[in-house]
Each structure stands twice: as C-alpha cells, then as structure tokens.
C-alpha cells in the first residue's frame, strides 16, 4: 500500500528527515513515534503530498505521490485551526463530501451516518467553538472519513486532549479503522499510545530525523485500555522502545 523509499527532506540546508524507508501493507495501522524535532510531522506531510521530498520517493498503491489527494485524508492536531469556524458541525463534515462531489440527498444521508458513527448526532447544528476539544477532534475525523480515504493520516490527533477523552478516541479510531479496513498512519509522541494502536510502530530519532527502530506489535485485537496495557508483551515493547525516546 505505502512504500517509502529513502525519503529525505531538508529545510534551508538542515536535514529534517534522512533516508526513511518503510512499507505499510493495506489495512494496517502504523504508528510513528518520536521526540519533538524528529520530523514526525514532516514525514506525515510527505505522505500527504503537502511536502515534496528532496530525496527518495513515496508511492501509494504503486503510484508515486506528487501532491495532495482526496484519497489520503489528514486529521490535524490543532483542531481549532483545522475546522471552519463559520460552519456548523454538519457543515464541516459536509466539506469533505462537497469536495468529493457527493450530490445533495445522498450528502445529507452520509453526513448523518458519519455524525452517528463519531457520536456527534446530537450536536450537528452546533458550531465548533461551542464544542469541547474532544468533540471538535471527532468532527475532524468525521470529515476525513467522509472523503472515503484509502489512507488516513493522523498528526498527533489526541496530543492536546485530556487522558480520558484520549483513551475513548483511541478505541474509536481503532474500531473504525478495523471496520473500514482503512490504512492508517498515526503520528504521536506518546509511546504507549503508539503501541496500543499500532500493528507496527516506527520510532524516529532526531538530527536528522531517521528511523531508530521498528517493531511489529503482536497483540491481538480488539485491544482494551485495561488488559492490553497490562499485557506482558505490551510492557515488553514499552521497555524496548522507551530508551530510544530519551534525549
């Protein structure tokens, strides 16, 4: 599905990413974790097509990524900036469908389904500013799902949320990804979140951003916030990767 080959990105002579190569099979959940400054977000933007790498190439389904595409939906971390404040919740979700040219009667039906799926049914007429952070992030996810993406790119989507909200959303994203068999690339700075969600975890190191370690998480799904996090394999992964994230 995704094939990244020797990807390198520099910003004004300084290498942000160097020699990044990995594959993600279709329907798999890849988490990329790393300290700040390790180029996680840059890597996600390369996958999205928002940045053209200076070296190497990313291919999705065999086709080289040359620019952004609707088939690759992005969920940004800063939901307050990524939602349209003048549109209601339903209007924000509609944006993705409008972009895809979904005509009206069907659009309303799809919006309703998406809102129900993300637990937003009761606030479709609210404006983003009237919602909590967690709810706003749900709106963004609903909008992204409306694009019917092959690939869902999530940039530290829960980084600004409190722990309880975050765990709830982790489980929902895991459930939806499994239901829709969407390929997901999920950026986080939280190692436990990465192990909990991922089929695969890539750990980045800084200066320049490069792959320090990659593991396959061999814990069956569906996972549970309580048992999975106490699973000896979970703790073992955590031990192995923890040292890599220290500066």
């Amino acid at each position, binding site marked *: 599905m995704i094939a990244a080959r020797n990807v390198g990105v520099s910003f004004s002579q300084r290498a942000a990413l160097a020699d990044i190569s990995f594959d993600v099979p279709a329907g798999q959940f890849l988490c990329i974790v790393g300290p700040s400054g390790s180029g996680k977000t840059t890597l996600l933007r390369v996958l999205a097509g928002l940045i053209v790498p200076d070296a190497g190439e990313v291919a999705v389904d065999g086709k080289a990524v040359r620019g*952004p595409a*609707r088939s690759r939906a992005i969920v940004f971390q*800063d939901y307050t900036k990524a939602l349209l404040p*003048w549109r209601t919740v339903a209007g924000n979700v509609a944006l993705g469908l409008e972009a895809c040219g979904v005509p009206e009667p069907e659009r309303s039906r799809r919006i309703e389904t998406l809102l129900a799926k993300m637990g937003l049914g009761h606030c479709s007429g609210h404006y983003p500013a009237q919602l909590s952070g967690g709810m706003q992030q749900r709106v963004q996810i609903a909008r992204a799902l409306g*694009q019917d993406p092959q690939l869902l790119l999530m940039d530290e989507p829960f980084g600004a949320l409190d722990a309880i909200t975050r765990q709830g959303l982790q489980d929902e994203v895991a459930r939806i990804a499994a239901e829709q068999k969407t390929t997901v690339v999920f950026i986080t700075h939280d190692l436990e979140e990465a192990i909990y969600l991922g089929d695969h975890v890539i750990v980045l190191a800084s200066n320049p951003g490069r792959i320090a370690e990659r593991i396959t998480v061999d814990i069956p799904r569906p996972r549970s916030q309580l048992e999975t996090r106490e699973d000896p394999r979970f703790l073992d992964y955590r031990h192995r990767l923890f040292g890599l994230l220290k500066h």
Partner: protein
Amino acid sequence: MRGLVIPSLLIIGWEIGSRAGVLPPDSTSRPSEIVRALVQALADGSLLRDTWLTFEAALLGFAIAGALGILLGAVLGLSPRTERTVGPSIEALRPIPAVALIPLALLVFGFGLRMEAAVVAFAALWPVLLVTVSAVRGVEPRLLELSRSLELSFSRQLVKIVLPAAFGRIAVGLRVALAISLVVAVTVEIVLNPRGLGHSMIAAQQAMRSDLMYAQLLWLGFVGWALNKVAQR
C-alpha cells in the same frame, strides 16, 4: 447634550451676525434661509434626484472596485509568485490621485455615469485590494492545507474557504472604500460631470444661491453619515 452647545451658539450667533450685517451676505446665508432652501429642495424632489444620481455613480464604482479588489486581492494573497509579478505594476498605479484620471475618463467615456463610476472605482479599488491581500495572507495555513488535501479547485477554495475566513477583515476595506466612493463621486461632479449633488452645488454657487449651496452641503453631510451608519452594520 453638552456637545450641542457649541453648534447651537454658533448657529444663533451666525443668524444674529448675518441680520446685523456683520457677516458678508454673499458667502454666508442666514441659517433660516438655509433651512428654507433645504426644505424646498427636498419638497420639489430636486435634492433627492441629485442624491440618487450621485449614489448611482458612487455605488456602481464601489461595486466594481469591490468585486475587482476582492478577486485580484485573493489571487495576489494566495500566490506569492503572481504578487511578485503584478505587485510592482500595482504599486506604480496606486499613487496616481484618482481625480487626476478625470480628464482621461472623460476622453474614454464622455460625460455621464460611466466616467464618474470609473474614477470612483479607481479610487475605491486600493483599500479593498490591499486589505484583501493581507486578509488572505492571514488565513489560517491549516485551512489552505486542508483545501489542498481536498483537491478543491481555485474558485471553490476561494468561495468555500478563503473568502469566508478572510471576510471579517475584507469588510473593513469595503467600508473604507464605500466612504471614498461618495467623496470621489461628488468631487467628479463638482469638477466637471454635469449630474448629481456635486454639480448642483457648483450650479447653486455660480447662481449666487449660497443658501441652497449650504443646504446641499448640510444634506451631503447627512447622507455621508447615513451611508457610514449603514456600512457599519
């Protein structure tokens, strides 16, 4: 209420001074005469007709300036490359005083609505254009990335994302442009276009009807104030 003290005293003093023969009668009509002229010009419809003619030109010019300024401003704001190409030409045109274009506009359009609206549009374009460029540049970059990742066409990006996001600031430019439109329309009429309030004022002045001229001035002040009130909503 305190603010009314000085104008009241001035008007009373003016009326008395005028009746006592202290003030020159040609350039200063008595307030009572001015009020009579105002009521008469309102009653016979001439004042309202002139007001409409002036508004027609001011609003047409404003509409052209608004549409052009927003469109051009959005393009320049979104594309730094176009800005670098077109920007210097704009900077060269901008310092030309709009009224200096009156002879040219007359040559191209002749007397009438079109030449007046053209001069108004030139004058009102700049505030809309400059404010739009900076408002569009200030649009949250996330939203532009979002519209790129949704593969929105340029026009849909403009309508769905950029203009709604920038509208609050663009409205400020439009308000300034509206005020300028009225000023320039009246100016063009005073200078040479034989229509509207400005022309009637110069005609009244030349006919030694300073009472009517003051009445029109008073009315113009009111109209400008009312237009500004409407624009602020």
